[in-house]
């Protein structure tokens, strides 16, 4: 994994702590976090080492690396925590599983907390509901505050800072791409379907994933067609062309800053309803973290799949003659409460929907979750994606794999390609809406 250099860190407002200062700073931040985040304290202190999480974690099953077993991953932090923040740990040391930092600790944190996809599946099987994702989020935050983070994250954070989206798409390019997509839709449908950018006094603010303006164009087209048919007054803010919030994946302050962009854009463009696009963790961040990040949020907030499912009766489709299966993104199912809506939409758009096993809240992560999309980590990504590939194969012959999350859209095809299994189309759920839609002329 390529790590960000000091100059790169400074560009996004982080500083590199010298090696001698790192452990003290880590402890200081841990101490602050534990009293300001109940989850960290309770989850580190309540684990009884029952081991039920082991066989349920795709990361452990795929990599077969002991440190990827959720309780063991948490141990990387728990042992330090016990040593410094619990009486039994201070007094009895390794007898109770307490340990001091050594030269390898932070290196292990960097390695293993970036092999957790923050999928929360372990929490479904933990008797206490301990969420290793939460510990991973804290660990990554601490590391970033020490100046230790993947260059991949730094690059994205820099783009977010400069342009408000992960890819670094500046406003003129956004307008050009929107124009191009409008031309494509006109060619296809003969209709003047618009993708309005920065239109003031819009009722609906749609926040796409920036990837929808680069590779996952069909998702954007599906959404534009839907809004067109429904006749709503909508727009996309060029300042926040990003449903994703990578701050959630490596630094909580960056998360807060990006979340504020959302609130600002909604205010500036006068919207009443914010609709988030097909992005998993971005949905979790928007739905669950907005109030905590930036206080009261005076707008309605829904996900595009919720919106579409609610308005399905006003849309008309000619069902595609396809056999489709659905990958439930972790952040929709376990962390976001969106499970039946994509199914409702898919059933309206295609002839057959078959389920993977397990599905819904027990689904396995794609292996790219929490931004593990670095090219240099491809070998790890292949292992993290192994359970997912097995699930897909077990479904049998399909024409289309519905993947309503940008990170999954980047990970699953790449992994399937490596296994030589990309025999069918893969894309979002709104893509199907776009492909199946018929317009009353």
């Amino acid at each position: 994994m390529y790590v960000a250099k000091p100059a790169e860190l400074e560009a996004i407002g982080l500083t590199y702590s010298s090696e001698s200062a790192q452990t003290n700073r880590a402890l200081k931040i841990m101490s602050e976090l534990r009293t300001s985040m109940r989850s960290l304290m309770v989850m580190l202190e309540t684990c009884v080492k029952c081991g039920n999480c082991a066989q349920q974690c795709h990361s452990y099953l795929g990599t077969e690396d002991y440190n990827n077993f959720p309780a063991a991953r948490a141990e990387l932090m728990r042992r330090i925590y016990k040593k410094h923040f619990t009486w039994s740990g201070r007094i009895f040391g390794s007898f109770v599983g307490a340990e001091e930092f050594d030269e390898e600790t932070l290196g292990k944190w960097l390695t293993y907390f970036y092999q957790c996809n923050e999928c929360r599946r372990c929490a479904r099987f933990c008797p206490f509901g301990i969420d290793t994702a939460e510990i991973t989020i804290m660990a990554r935050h601490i590391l970033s505050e020490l100046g230790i983070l993947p260059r991949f994250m730094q690059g994205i954070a820099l783009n977010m800072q400069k342009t408000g989206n992960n890819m670094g798409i500046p406003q003129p390019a956004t307008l050009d791409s929107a124009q191009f997509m409008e031309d494509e839709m006109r060619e296809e449908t003969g209709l003047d379907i618009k993708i309005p950018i920065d239109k003031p006094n819009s009722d609906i603010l749609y926040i796409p994933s920036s990837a929808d303006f680069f590779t996952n164009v069909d998702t954007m087209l599906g959404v534009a067609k839907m809004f067109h048919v429904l006749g709503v007054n909508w727009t996309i803010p060029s300042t926040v062309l990003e449903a994703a919030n990578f701050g959630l994946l490596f630094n909580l302050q960056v998360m807060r800053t990006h979340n504020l962009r959302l609130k600002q854009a909604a205010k500036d463009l006068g919207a009443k309803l914010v609709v988030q696009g097909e992005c998993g963790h971005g949905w979790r961040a928007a739905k669950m973290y907005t109030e905590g990040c930036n206080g009261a949020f005076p707008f309605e907030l829904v996900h595009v799949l919720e919106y579409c499912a609610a308005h399905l009766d006003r849309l008309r489709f000619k069902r595609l003659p396809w056999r489709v299966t659905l990958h439930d993104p972790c952040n929709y199912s376990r962390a976001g409460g969106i499970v039946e809506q994509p199914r409702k939409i898919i059933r309206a758009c295609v002839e057959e929907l078959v389920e993977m096993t397990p599905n819904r809240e027990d689904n396995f992560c794609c292996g790219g979750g929490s931004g593990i999309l670095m090219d240099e980590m491809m070998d790890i990504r292949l292992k993290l994606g192994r359970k997912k590939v097995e699930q897909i194969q077990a479904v049998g012959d399909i024409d289309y794999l519905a993947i309503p999350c940008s990170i999954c859209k980047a990970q699953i095809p790449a992994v399937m390609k490596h296994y030589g299994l990309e025999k069918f189309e893969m894309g979002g759920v709104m893509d199907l809406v776009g492909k199946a839609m018929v317009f009353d002329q």
Partner: protein
Amino acid sequence: MLFFLGQIFPYIAIIVFLTGMTWRVLIWLKAPVPFQLTLFPAPQTFAGRVRVIGWEILSFKSLWRGDRTLWLWAWLMHGSLVLIIGGHIVGIYTLTRQFTLIGLSPAASSAWSAGFGIAAGIICFLSLMVLFYRRTAITELKRLSDPVDYFDLLLLLAIVISGMHMRLTSLNIDLPAIRFYLAGILTLHPIPIPRTWIFVSHFTLVNILLLYFPFSKLVHAAGFVVNRAMVTEKPPIYPTPASRVGEARFKQGGRIE
């Protein structure tokens, strides 16, 4: 020595247990939950939350959905412990006559009390042994476990074994004297402890457990409720209702600590 173990130590143990557990829970509850960590599927109402959490306590559902063998022995261990504790309370208080309340004769009640007690004790003993064995036999679990994980099981085993010894060699046990002694403790009028060594050791081991409880992973008893309450919290509503605007969760000062 017996004076300390019989009339001082029990108070130390109970005070440390109660204040320690309260302290742990209060420290947890003092830390805010800035972001809802709802784990779906989540209940929509408070009653729903109580039901979900209650059912998890009763059935250990998450273990059932995972490793069934672990579920079996963990459930049996906790279940038999509950029966044992409950049985101690009613059995000692009524001097094994609790089943006369459902129409049995005192002698039959004593027999049933003994029967349930022995059964629960055996199940508890067996399950503790199996859980101990699992920790040594399953590779990942062995690697994950700390010495204290074995210590906790051994402490519980010692309590169960000493208790079973009392039950199975009941000729030496003067239950009325024990009841009288315990009543003295509870009413803050302590009297000398009955001088049966097996009772003293059993009782002292239990007090050690109580003393140890708030500093160990046994706090999971309370941690369970606190954590489950956190992950079953309702997701936020947008737009933020007017009533909540003032106290909406919000970290001041520009930084999330």
